[in-house]
């Protein structure tokens, strides 16, 4: 608690972290009363990270990771804060699953790749790395997206996941970013900044470069999806009760969607 803290200089406070989690959370609330947000649902300790690593099922991960209820590792907050290293995770999976660890290690490699790009390019990753392959919008992030009020059951859930727990399934991150950048024409940098702050595992390299990948300024084409794809990987969880199910903006073939989103301004 604050009462146990020692003020060693007017603007500097040293404090002893409480041993139990509830008290630690209260310390943070008291020390940073102006910082908004929910409480952390993640254990975050090294012990919890090692336990989570032993629970990784690399075979199930390879089969089901793209499904919203699939077997994902949920290790990203640990990687982000160094609580677990990518090498530890890769070694653990390879030792246990041999070649069956391929997909899991492949995804770890993406995270490593983003970090290497960041290390080489520094803060320039916050500007487009390549010329976007389609015209991008520059609108500010609208409140209905930020506040989960678009009326689209899927996107509103993904926004609530973000601002509620700070954790969003990877496939949902891709769908959401595609909606924000390509359907709503929001400036990807504004969206990426907001997303980074809300995430529990927000990482400048992975987050910023993934938004660029979606936008097409760090990939060969824009990432788009359609309703069929979203329904498949969510088992219709959102579409079945969506208020906009009859006017779904994702209900089209990829060719039609591409033409609708980019035809007027596709760059050569």
């Amino acid at each position: 608690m604050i009462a146990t803290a020692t003020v060693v200089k007017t603007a500097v406070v040293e404090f002893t972290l409480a041993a139990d989690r509830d008290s630690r959370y209260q310390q943070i609330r008291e020390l940073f009363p102006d910082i908004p947000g929910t409480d952390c649902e993640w254990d975050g300790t090294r012990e919890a990270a090692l336990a989570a690593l032993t629970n990784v099922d690399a075979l199930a991960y390879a089969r089901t990771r793209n499904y919203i209820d699939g077997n994902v590792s949920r290790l990203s907050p640990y990687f982000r804060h160094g609580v677990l290293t990518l090498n530890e995770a890769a070694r653990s999976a390879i030792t246990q699953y041999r070649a069956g660890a391929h997909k899991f290690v492949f995804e770890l490699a993406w995270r490593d790749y983003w970090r290497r790009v960041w290390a080489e390019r520094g803060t320039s990753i916050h500007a487009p790395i390549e010329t976007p392959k389609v015209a991008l919008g520059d609108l500010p992030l609208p409140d209905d997206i930020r506040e989960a009020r678009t009326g689209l059951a899927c996107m509103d859930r993904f926004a609530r996941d973000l601002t509620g727990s700070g954790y969003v399934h990877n496939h949902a991150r891709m769908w959401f970013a595609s909606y924000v950048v390509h359907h709503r024409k929001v400036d990807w940098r504004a969206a990426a900044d907001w997303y980074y702050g809300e995430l529990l595992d927000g990482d400048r390299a992975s987050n910023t470069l993934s938004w660029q990948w979606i936008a097409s300024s760090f990939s060969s084409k824009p990432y788009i999806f359609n309703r069929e794809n979203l329904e498949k990987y969510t088992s219709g969880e959102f579409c079945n009760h969506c208020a906009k199910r009859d006017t779904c903006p994702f209900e089209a073939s990829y060719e039609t969607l591409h033409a609708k989103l980019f035809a007027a301004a596709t760059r050569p």
Partner: protein
Amino acid sequence: MKLLLIHDEMLNASLPIFEAHADRPRVFVFDPAFIAQQGWRRRRLQCIANALSSIPAVRVFKGALVDVVAVLGLADSAPHRETQVVT
């Protein structure tokens, strides 16, 4: 004074740098200006606090990083020595 300044990407006492500088006081700073600039939410600070709780003997501060380093340097009994920081 020589410090091991722990930053938000190294919250793990089994990392080699902790052993390499085992003699240095371990310090972590919640810097309000940095936190605001990052846009972090409360849950992120709590997540970091959870991770810090499993690192032995770390001194935790709230304040501007430069002020904390200055305070720790000034606290040294030999003020002519520079504060040395390893991250």
